């Protein structure tokens, strides 16, 4: 599997990272370098192996579904590059 410039543009779009046209070739080369190297996993037969989902075997912990922190609007929006009256401000999304 090899990544071409069109694919790089597509994944950059999915990742929401602007990429200039003159960066595409180098990025494709770097990603292909890494992908070629990880291809060696193809040698491993893992057909009947369960994928690892937890580094340490443990049962999923459950807790009561209750509110534990309240009235944090000021703290939560304190770091926003754009905030007004406790709300985030973003460019217009719906016309």
């Amino acid at each position, binding site marked *: 599997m090899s990544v071409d410039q069109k694919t790089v543009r597509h994944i950059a779009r999915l990742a929401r990272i602007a990429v200039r046209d003159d960066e595409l070739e180098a990025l494709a080369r770097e990603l292909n370098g890494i992908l070629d190297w990880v291809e060696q*996993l193809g040698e491993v037969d893992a057909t009947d192996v369960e994928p690892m989902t937890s580094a340490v075997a443990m049962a999923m912990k459950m807790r009561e579904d209750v509110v534990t922190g309240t009235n944090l609007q000021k703290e939560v929006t304190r770091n926003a590059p754009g905030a007004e009256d406790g709300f985030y401000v*973003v460019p217009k999304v719906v016309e």
Partner: protein
Amino acid sequence: MSDLTKLTLAAARDALKKKEITSSELTGAYLKEMADAGALNAYVTTTADKAQEMAKISDAKLQKGEGGALEGIPLGIKDLFCTKDVPTSAGSHILEGFVPPYESTVTANLWRDGAVMLGKLNNDEFAMGSSNETSFYGPVVNPWRRKGSDARLVPGGSSGGSSAAVAAKLCLGATATDTGGSIRQPAAFTGTVGLKPTYGRCSRWGIVAFASSLDQAGPIARDVRDAAILLGSMAGHDEKDTTSVDRPVPDYEAALGQGIKGLSVGIPKEYRVEGMPKEIDDLWTRGIEWLKAAGATVKEVSLPHTKYALPTYYIVAPAECSSNLARYDGVRYGLRVEGRDITDMYEKTRAEGFGAEVRRRVLMGTYVLSAGYYDAYYLKAQKVRTLIARDFAEAYSEVDVLLTPTAPSAAFAIGEKSNDPLSMYLNDVFTVTVNLAGLPGISVPAGLSAEGLPLGLQLIGRTFDEETLLRAAYAIEQAAGFTAEPEVWWRA
């Protein structure tokens, strides 16, 4: 260097308790060393006022014979840990100006026990790197230099600020995090001790996330005892992290005195990799002899999937990072670059806010998780991960602990590997297996290279058996008698 900063954490703790020194004196001595060490670029933020205030409170407690396990001990904090009302950057432009309104659990535990915060330590951007060169705030410089050379060397990464600060005595100990070797490799490069605990031993809450199934916090310290003391405070159950484990925190320091008579040590034959420098191989052999002399039995074991660990890691870690880093959108915190519309704003913000290595990994992760490729890459990697963990489980049916080198080389020069991602990734060849399997590992300084640079040996333990790990590490430390220190060239 003042005599006060020569004390280890354990010695300083004892002197504080006996009222031979005060925390204000000790903290003042460290703040002075930090102010003179700008050339190392280890700290990105100094919290001098806060440090002096915390020291004063500790002194009042110590005066009354009160105080916690770390009362009055000045520490450096990796800038990946959120600290309330103190800027936290993760070494990234995209978090510029971010001031957390909350405290990470690990640092809260340290303050609960009386520790004093000196400042925030530089690291690779979002902990992605093995040399501290990807930080937006510039590379950290290793206090160590090659014999007869003034070339600037890397301190390892991603916890390069932590390792450099401990080695240069700019703090008594430091917090760090390890996703693929980011505690142990920098410790090896700087002649310090780095302990990556079992996954789940320390809470991840409030630590800027990189790859959530691999990330784990731990200490970098001057010696094994100091690492044991720090882990005792950092570890513990936390309801805010569902992967944190609810089991008692043992007295790690007490484990050190127990010796290793009868301990069974495994030597994984697959770690004898091609092209490994002879001096590292020799160091490993010496480590085996030391453990035997201390009463351990040594046998060869096999971890057949070792060679697949790095490729597995470079699927799993980018995949998880691409998801974790989706939160940096220019809306809730940090940098925003305005655009034509909201998508344009996201794209411009992330293009400007992320450095080259972070962008590469986010793109790589997005690709391996994208439609049609998930099974071929991510699912396959998670299956191989099971096989790697199984290798370890089988080895631990025969032995108690494993001994390996920490890194395939000593510290390299700044710029030497930064244009070649794959050669940089190979730095983690001996450490990354431990993260994939969730095990605890520790790096102990064990000797000097021909060029006069520190080299480390790694011990790998069973899940939640940090006590045996520390016992064996202490035996290596005693036998190695590593007392070398970098010559102080950085003082302003």
